[in-house]
């Protein structure tokens, strides 16, 4: 518990400011000073700054316990959850920017909600079942190990840190992003989901899917939930390649080899 306490420091926050209601004012950095207190997180610090110095400062927090995913932000150039970040682990100068890769609402607030809704629509992030629910029937049994594996894929909180850290997601707005690939794998593994390999192929393969990833893997480095994204992509590539082997022309096309080989 002791490393959380470093009394006596005066922190300087340099915060990105932009107000959508005043488009004539250029985006800028603004500085604030704050006395550090024990166990101070960015949640506490930003609220104190707003309440005492910058009444119009916009940022997003909800659960303040790293489960709701509201407070992704760039802290000294790295995407993190603000509520989970102790100032004690940061230098005296703390530079805060909004997450890139999302539409800016104002200051540190970005529109992750619409982005993730769009992603959910794109990958159809729900169980596709052909049978309607029967309220009279007992549940279908499932092996607990499989349930645990599905839960592992379910742990993503859609904070957007991986998207902000992803070179591809920042340049290709159609790329489903690391979080999207994780969602795909979660449903692909679920035996209740009746999508066929063919259905999946069109979602997974191609440059908006797993073959769009260029393997920088910043996503895994910055994921606040430590999701094993490298394993996720390996799984998706394997499934796509196995299916692609049954659809040879298409696989060559999507992996970009067709044109080079004169196809």
């Amino acid at each position, binding site marked *: 518990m002791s490393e959380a306490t470093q009394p006596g420091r005066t922190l300087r926050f340099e915060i990105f400011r932009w107000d959508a209601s005043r488009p004539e004012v250029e985006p800028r950095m603004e500085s604030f000073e704050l006395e550090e207190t024990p*166990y101070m997180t960015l949640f506490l610090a930003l609220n104190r700054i707003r309440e005492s110095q910058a009444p119009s400062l916009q940022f997003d927090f909800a659960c303040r316990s790293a489960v709701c995913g509201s407070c992704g932000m760039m802290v000294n150039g790295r995407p993190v959850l603000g509520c989970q970040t102790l100032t004690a682990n940061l230098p005296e100068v703390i530079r805060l920017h909004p997450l890139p890769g999302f539409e800016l609402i104002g200051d540190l607030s970005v529109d992750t909600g619409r982005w993730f809704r769009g992603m959910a629509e794109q990958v159809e992030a729900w169980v596709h079942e052909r049978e309607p629910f029967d309220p009279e029937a007992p549940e279908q049994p499932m092996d607990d190990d499989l349930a645990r594996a599905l839960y592992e894929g379910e742990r993503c909180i859609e904070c957007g840190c991986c998207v902000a850290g992803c070179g591809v997601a920042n340049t290709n707005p159609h790329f489903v992003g690391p979080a999207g690939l994780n969602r795909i794998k979660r449903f692909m593994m679920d035996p209740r989901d009746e999508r066929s390999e063919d259905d999946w192929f069109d979602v997974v393969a191609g440059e908006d899917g797993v073959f769009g990833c260029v393997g920088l893997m910043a996503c895994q480095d910055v994921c606040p939930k430590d999701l094993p994204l490298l394993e996720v992509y390996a799984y998706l590539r394997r499934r796509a390649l196995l299916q692609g082997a049954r659809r040879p022309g298409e696989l060559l096309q999507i992996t970009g080899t067709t044109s080079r080989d004169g196809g």
Partner: protein
Amino acid sequence: MQAIETTDVLVIGAGLAGERCAIEAAGAGLGVKLLSVVPPRRSHSCAAQGGMQAALGNCVKAEGDGPTLHFLDTVRGSDWGADQEVAQIFAEEAPVAVRELAHWGVPWTRVRPGKNTYFVKGEPVEIEEKDENAGLIMHRNFGGTAKWRACYAAAGTGHAVLYAVDGEVVRLGIDVQDRAEAVALIHESGRCWGAVVRCLRTGRMSAVLARATVIATGGHGRIYGTYTTNATINEGTGAAIALRAGVPLGNMEAVQFHPTGLWPSGILVTEGCRGDGGHLLNRRLERFLVDLEPEKQELASRDVVSRHMMQQIKDGQGVDSAVGEHLWLDLRHLGERHLRTKLLEVTEICRDFAGLDPARDLIPVRPTQHYSMGGIRVNKDGEAYGMRGLFAVGEASCWDMHGFNRLGGNSLAETIVAGRVVGQRVADFAHANGLDVEVGLAQECVQDEERRVQGWLARPGCTDSIYAIRDAMAETLAGKVGVFRSGPELESAVDEIRQQIVRLDRVGLRGSPGGMNPELTFALRLEGMLRLALVTALGALERTESRGAHCRTDHPRRDDQSWLNRTLARWPEGAPAPELHYEPVGLIDLPPGDRGYGQSDRRELAEPLESYNASVVEGQRKQGALPTVEPVGSRLDWGAWRHAEPGPTPDRSE
């Protein structure tokens, strides 16, 4: 000229209750609009950890379970403050709700056949799960229940359920407007027609007109400031606009304190920790609950455990720390494997917010405001008292299956069950009733809200601040309307909150106008929060008995003769102060008796149950209860509890 939109069903709040209700209405072919102050998946439902109660009876420790036992536990847990018919509907529907969620993809933890080691009353016990139950939905133990009943997905149950339910919302293409807040209801002559909506991106006001309006904005724990497990968004906006519209709030003094809020941040540490065998220790590292509650030990109901904990602290058995006294939660004996799978989220929270590893360290905990049993008073169809076309579901409502104490895992279950049940009533209502309202009414309501905003912006800044008033409100409630309450403290709490309301009338904003203006956004909410705070303190002051979570040190007995009723707080339009009224709790099947844990001293109901029950319908109608689709009492399975296996026996068996 303001924007005016129309829809069939407007649902305010996109947590589990709101979304499940919206799904029901959309499934019935209606146009639905969902409003939420945050993207739906960031709603506070996502923070529910330990489980969802449903009597499936799938594992050995759940054998013999069924809706009747769930009903019994819920009513006893409520300290007989619940509406027993609603508790019955809930207990019967919960298994279907859980299975429907499995169908939608929730990765419920499943029964592992063969030998399993569980912790029961502090000891490891080896239990052989049957092969025929392999892979069915597993249960864990929770407080105040006769059987293991909580269905769970590690310690991220709410998150997993919310993602599955929101997946259905996306699949159905339901229109979600996030970063939008309903700041007033549009209503006329006891009929609700939608809401005035403030956009939290731009600050612009608009109106949404609807045949049926549903409030599902969750609880209001943030009236306790930082002394709560609740998210920053749980500011009671829905309850506040209902109160302003003349709708009564039920049992606002019934406030739950969760035994294990992480100290000092207040972040929730799930009851599943104790359900899985965790211990509570005092400064001498003694399990004080073994002697105090021999039967249930750490797994008595939350109100009872919280009281014992606060008493330990009062008796000098708390652990000193620089930021105040606390007790310990000990999970070390559960082992690393268990802590990294079934309680993974707890391990993460301890690491991130306290720098602890629960496999090696004790966890500092203290009772912390957690749940609002009180809320918008509705009938069993979910329709608000005295306001046709307005419904409420989930924590925002007082439906009222929780009475004066909610059992752990019953709220997650309520969101889905009530979403299904009330959602059907909402759909039927919207099919049967058109949108027969003048546009002028919507325009007037929007203009009223714009004037309210202008009023704030016109006031000059001063030395006082809205945040200082918020902190004062929180100190008052946490200090004087907490786990233990007394007449003099409550009187002073009421006085203080009245003064805070006066302060709010005089305070100005410091920032410049324009855009969503976070300071203005909070100022508008604080008006409502102070009103909720006042009716909470006033209800607690007037209720001169102890029932469930409402514990009066100056009136320690439960008093069924005078207080077997529900408080209804109204704030008549333009009135300076609220009014309190009372109604019968509902039809009583299980007679008031001993809960089986906590104190058993009480004053008996003087009149026969038959005469109490005969007064229910009229007593509730007088307070504004609207007629229900099916008659009151139709869902009660009278006397079924007599055939259930014995728990603590009610001493009035007839």
